[in-house]
Structures are given as structure tokens and as C-alpha cells.
């Protein structure tokens, strides 16, 4: 493989890593926004949201955040400049 090809490959990796970090940064903001949605639900009157549905919504967002954080953390694991070699 020629040197320029190598460099291009590295460049792409660095780029991908940067975007992963961006995603990791964006995730809590998304979470905060999603969990702010209940603030819009009306608290009194006939049109209130049943608690069971509220539970499903809040826990649904929670599960999404956990899965997303898990995926990001496994992707971010393969970052050679930051981390020493993983011990078995």
C-alpha cells in the first residue's frame, strides 16, 4: 500500500473518531431535550397523560440513551492515541 493511501485511511479514521466524539457530546443534550418533553404535558384537566404512558416514555428514552451510550463507548474504545493497550 502506498503512503498516500495510508494517510488517507488514517485521515478517514480520525474523521470518524471526531464525529463519534461529537455524537457522545450530543447525546446528553438529546436526552435532556427528550426528558423535557413531559414539561409540555398538561398537568390538570381532563386531557392529562396516564402515568403508565409517562412511565413507558421516560423509560423508553432511558433505554435509548443507555443503548446509544453503550454503542458509542464500544466504538470509542478503539482509539489508539488516547488509550494504552487494553489488558486482557
Amino acid at each position, binding site marked *: 500500500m502506498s503512503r498516500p493511501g495510508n494517510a488517507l485511511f488514517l485521515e478517514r479514521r480520525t474523521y470518524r473518531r471526531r464525529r463519534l466524539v461529537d455524537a457522545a457530546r450530543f447525546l446528553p443534550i438529546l436526552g435532556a431535550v427528550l426528558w423535557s418533553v413531559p414539561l409540555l404535558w398538561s398537568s390538570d384537566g381532563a386531557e392529562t397523560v396516564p402515568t403508565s404512558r409517562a*412511565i413507558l416514555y421516560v423509560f423508553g428514552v432511558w433505554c435509548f440513551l443507555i443503548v446509544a451510550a453503550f454503542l458509542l463507548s464500544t466504538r470509542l474504545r478503539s482509539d489508539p492515541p488516547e*488509550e494504552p493497550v487494553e489488558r486482557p
Partner: protein
Amino acid sequence: MATLNVLVAVCLAYVAVLFLVAFVAERAAARGRGWLGGPWVYTLSLSIYCTAWTFYGAVGYAARSGLEYLTIYLGPTLVFVGWWWLLRKLVRIGRAQRVTSIADLISSRFGKSNMLAVGVTILSVIAATPYIALQLQSVTLSFEVFARADGGAAASSAPASTAFWVAVGLAVFTVLFGTRNLDANERHHGVVMAIAVEAVVKLCALLAVGVFVIWGVAGGVGDVMTRIDASEIGHWQMDGGRWATLTFLSAAALLCLPRMFQVMVVENDEERHLRTASWAFPLYLMLMSLFVVPIAVVGLDLMPAGTNPDLFVLTVPLSQGQDGLAMLSFIGGFSSATSMVIVAAIALSTMVSNHIVMPIWLKLTGGGAIVSGDVRHVVLMARRVSIAGVVFLGYLYYQLSGGGAALAAIGLISFAGVAQVLPALVGGIFWRGATRAGALAGLTVGFAVWLYTMFLPSFGQGVILPAAVMQEGLFGLDWLRPRALFGIDGLDPLVHAVIWSVGLNTLVFLAVSLASFPSPLERLQGAQFINVFQHSQSPGGGFGGTAEAEDLLIMSQRILGAREAQALFHAEAARQGIEGYLPDPTPEFLQVLERELSGSVGAATAHAMVGQIVGGTTVSVEDLMAVADETAQMMEYSSKLEAQSRELSRTARQLREANEKLTRLSVQKDAFLSQISHELRTPMTSIRSFSEILREGGLERPERHKYASIIHGEAIRLTRLLDDLLDLSVLEDGQVSLNIRRARLADLLDQAEAAAGAASGGTGLEIRRDGPVDQVWITTDPDRLSQVFINLISNARKYCDAAGPRLTINVTQAGERLMIDFVDNGSGIPPDAQDLVFEKFSRIGDQKAGGAGLGLAICREIMARLGGSVSYLPGQGGAAFRVILPLHQAMAAQ
């Protein structure tokens, strides 16, 4: 029915198991971590966030206020999911600066200000008291439940005395657990392991109760959902302000709680654990809160009205006759409470002893502690007393507040208290402009507002704050009412207190920071904190005692040399009685080592290096300045040495050259002596033999005349030779007298050409002149100068080996100096002989020349007398000599 005695026995057995776990973990840690330092243990240890508040209080919270309890877990989830923003930096700073507590972090960010550390410590201790009271209350309540179920026997024991004994038990437990030894890095592997085990226990217990409630009591998920919607919390009724404020507050508390900081940053073994925790800890929180609402709703259904909903986790299984499950649940609650108290007390006692007790003690003893060597004892004692004190304060709060409030309400007071550290913390690690004065001012204002609007009123009206103050404000000023500062009424008390305290705190922090100017140390530390990712490498695992000694040895070997360093360490190990091992880095040994190292690298550098390895101390600005001074001195010294060595090598080269020249001269002298004796003997021999012939007589007149002429000629040759020698020695001794007058250069050259031509038969050599020869008049000794010219011209005549020999005389005038070049077209003088031609007795090879090799030597001496010089000009195509002389010979030169 489990009796109280069984309960106590189970508690003790459980504690014993925890001890065992901690002990085994410490041993494993001492041997070198294996699975101990893994990300799972780290994540589980973070679960001390979930205390008895979560275990008991969350259900009660849900039963009272619906889904609001979730906010307490949503905030931390967001912080951990967003670990890249803040936690990563916090952990890196904690490791790079070897921070021991949150007070230490704040203080070291703001120029190692101990005043700030004391402030944060006091705030943390006071804020922790309601929290510890909460744990005492929950354990006491759970005991009560069993006592009531047990019947009259133990019901007589008042809750107050139960709480007291629980407090004593927890204090003893924590002292035994947390202060068995003193680790330089404030790490407690045993405690962390025990907490991890407790985390599993409480999660299992809560999940077990949840599963029992859903599938044992109710008829599965669908049924529970129906029940939820049918219950009194079946509709979304939420104060939006509380939802947002509580989420923020829980996120802030996660970062600022001393015990969370302890497990999250101080006990962190490797940064990558954070990555696992970023999703695993939210998962743990979600599992912990998953069954809370079902338990609450089923509890509300099952239990008679007026039952404390905080205890549904216990009372629901008990009411269904599930004693075993109730016992598990009790253990879970006990776990939650004990782990929180242990870690909180350890973290707080570290802060109290490091920032309050030790500075005072050192001041009182005049800093002589290092010599007497009992500091460790004092520190341990200070920590034990602090632990007891912290737990006792919690008990006091429990007593004063009456132990009747909802668990969650108590916990939130703590949260709001520690959240006051947040502006200084976040500002400190993201904003270079944050100053010590700003942090101190913000913290003070926030603390005061929190005390006034939240902490003091929490005891109830009339306990500390009189009812009049609550109703009409401090000093009767209406705008100072604790629940409606500045007359803003109608807010939820919690939202009101948080907004005012954190808001004013942040505002004052920013304003004072902007207005004040930081000290150099603050600015340096600020730069190090904010740019921590540029300054620090990703640190590997922390090192225990052996690693330190090893690092010290490696460093010393580099500086002292392998043999010396090993001898030093060996001797120290022998002195410590552990021959064959590395010595312990005791203070005395470190002093010795520092002294040894300072011999090589300077005192400040040695101190900084040892400090870096042993940890605890970071390099101060003063250290750095001293290092810079030393370095500058060394650089100056080494540059002097360099100059000296350059000079030495120059001198040596000159000496070598001189030596070579001397050797050649000596060879020449030897050659000359044989030459001169030969030169003298040849005429002498002919003079002797011809004079003998004359003495015998009987010769014809022509023959007699011929022989006498030969004798005469040879005598003249002898005389000339001797004249030359004499001339030279006179010139060299400087006894020559010059006859200075004006002369035309052209006349002198004419004379010289004629004389040289006459002397050597006048054949062949063509002489050219270049330059303004005719116009040049000089003031010099013309006889001596023409002697030089004669010599140079006759040399050319003698040595020029070209077919058509030609000599060019080139005259140039440069200012007050005249340069006369004599260049012929022969093969010149070989380079290795060029520097010798002016030496006495020097002759090029053994050519046809008949001279004694004195001519050029005489020329050089004459020119020196005349204030000029004669030198060989290399690279002119043939032999070339340059005569330089002043136009006007100074009379003083005579």
C-alpha cells in the same frame, strides 16, 4: 416471624461478610490488582449514589408525588451519558493532580488556597448531615417495622435509642473499615470492593421485591399498569419547575457530593473505566427505579391508609407473609444506608483531617512532625474522630428534625447544599478567568442563602429559626422571608431555594472573578486544569508502595548511576530490616534520597522529582522557579566549561603545530651543521693544500700567482659566509642601526637587479615591472631594502626552473603601505616547505644552490626592522614573495 434478635444477628453476619470481602480485596490489591480494578467494580461502586433514600425513599416519593422521584436519577444519567463533557476531564484532572477530595480539587485549582478547602469542607460536612440523618432514620424505621411485627417485646425500645445505637454501630464500622491504613493516594480497595458487593445486594433485593409485587401480588405487567392508572398517582401531575430543578440538582449533586467524588475520581483506577460506566451506571439507575412505581401503587392498594409509604419495600412483603423476602429487602436497605455512611464519612474525614485538623496541628507543633514521625498516627486519629463527628452530626440532625419528614425531602436539602460547589467546580475546570476570590465569594453567598432558605427551616418552625422569622422575615424585613426572598412569593420552597442559592452563587462567582486578578500560582494551576488533556498523558494504573519504590529506584539509577543507586537502596532496605526487598519510601528515606539526588540535579529539582513520584505533593511554582534557577546556573557553568575546553583544544593544536615545527627545525639544524662544516671545510682544505704547495717553494711566478688567487678566493668565500652569519645574528638581536633616508623605489630596484645580475653571471632571467614604480618615493634604509631585493631577485635567478625564466615585479600602493610582489614562472616552492623557507639554514632540497640558506631569513629580519614584512604568496603560478613596507619609515622604529 423474624425476631429483632435474628435481625441484629443477620446484620452482624452481613457486616462480617463485608469485612471479609474488604479484607480479601485489600490483600488482592496489595498483591497487584486483577479483576479488582475492573470497570464493573468501578461502576458498581458508583452505586453508592443509591442510598437508603433510593431504596426506601423512592417508593415513598413515588407514592406521594408520582413520577417526580425519577428526576433524582435522570440528572446523573445525563451526566454519565455526557461523560465526554465533564466527567472525563474531572477524572483526568483528579489523576494528574493527585486530588484527594473535592475540597482538595477546588483548593488546588484556585492556587492551593486552604481557605477555600476549609470552606468546601465545612459546606460538605453541614450538607451531609441531613443525608446521614436520612440513613439513620431509614434504618431506624426498618427496625421499627420488624419490632412492630415482632409484637410487644421490643416495641418498647424508643426509636431515638435505636437511632443512637445504629449511629454508634455505623461509626465504629466506618472507623474499622476506612482508617485501617493510610494510603498516600487515599485509595481504599477494600471499601470499594465491599461497596460493589453491597451494590449487587441492594439491586437484587429491590428487583426481588419488584418481581414479587408484579407477579406475586398483582397479576403481571398489564394488571400493574391498569392499577397504576387507576391509583391516586395515575395521572401526570407535575410541577414543571420542580421537574427541571430536581433534574439539574441531582446532576449537580452527583458531581459535588464528596462521597461520589471519592468513588468517581479518587478511587478511579483507570480512565477507561469511565467509558463502561457511561452506559452501565445509567443502566443500574434505571433498574433501581424500574419497579418503584409498581411497588408504590401496590403498596397504596394493599396497606391501610396512613402507613408510611417510605417503608412499602419492607411492609408489602411482610404483609404477604414473605418473611424471607422482607429480610432480603431489609438487608438491601441496610446495605444502602451503610455504604453511603461509610463512604461519606471516609470522604468527609479525609477532607476534615487534611484541610482543617492537620494544618492546625502542624501549626501548633511548629512543623516538627516530620522528625518525630508520628504524623500518620495523628492523621489516623484525626480521621477517626472526624468520622465519629460526622456521624454524630447526622444523629443530631435526626434528633432535632424529629425524624418525621419524608426521606426524599431530607435528601434534597443535602443535594442543594453540595450543589453550591458546582459553579466553582465547573468554572474552575472550564474557565481560565475563574479566580480564588470569585470562588470564595460565590461559595459563601450560596452557602449562606442555602442555610437560610433551606437548611435551617428544615428543622421545622421554631426549632432554630423562630416562627416570626419564617412568617415576617429576618429583622422583620418582609423581603428576607426564607421562603420568599426579595418578595418573590408563590414558588415551590425547593425551587425557590435552589434558584436563589445557586443563581446568586454563580452570579457572585462570575462577577468577583471578572473583577479580581489571580495570583501567579492560580493562573498556573488554572492553565493546568483547563488544558489538562494537553498537559498530561493518559495515566496508567495508580501505583502502590512497591511501584513507588521501583519508580524511585529507576529514577535514581538514571541520575546517580545504577551501582550507586542500588547500593543506596540496599543499605536502606537493610536499615529497615527488609533486606532483599525494595525499601519502603518512608519520609526519612525520601529525605536521604532527595539529598543524594540534589547532589546531582539540585535541591529543588530533586524535591520536585521525588514529589512527583511519591505523589500527594504537586510541584509548586516556587519549586519550578528554583529548578529554573538551578538549570540556568548549570547551563552557564557548562557553557563556561565548553568555552574553556574549546580554548584548551585550540592551545593544544597550536602546541602540536609548534612541536612539529620545532622537530623540523631541529632536523634542519642538524642538516645545516653538517652543511656548514662541509662549506667551511671545502675552502679550508683548498687554502691549506695550496698554502702547503706555496711553502715548499720552487714554483714559477704564474703558478704562484694562480695558487695565491685561489687561496684568496676561498678566503673571501669564507668571509662572506661568516659575514652572513654575523649579519643575521646582529639583525636577530635587534642591534642593527638603520640609515633612514628618502629614496626612489625604481633606483633601488635598478641597483638590486644590477647587483643580482652581477653576482650570478647575468644570464637568462627576464625581469618585468608592473605598477607605478617610477613615482614611488619611500623613506627607509635603502641599503637594507636593496639587500632584500637582491636576495629575492637572485633567488629567482637561481631557482626558477622554467625554460624561459621570467620574473615579474608588481608594485601596488594601499594607503600608507606599499606591496611589492616578486613572482616568477617556475614551479614554485612545494606546499610543505612554504612555512620553512624563511627559517635560518633552510634550503629547498639540495639543489644547485650554493648558499647556506640564510638569505630569506636575513630578508625577514630586515623587513621586520623596517616595519614591514616579507611573506610567501601561494598559488601565483610560481614562486612568489610579497614585500610589504610602509611608505614612511617611522624614525622611532630605529
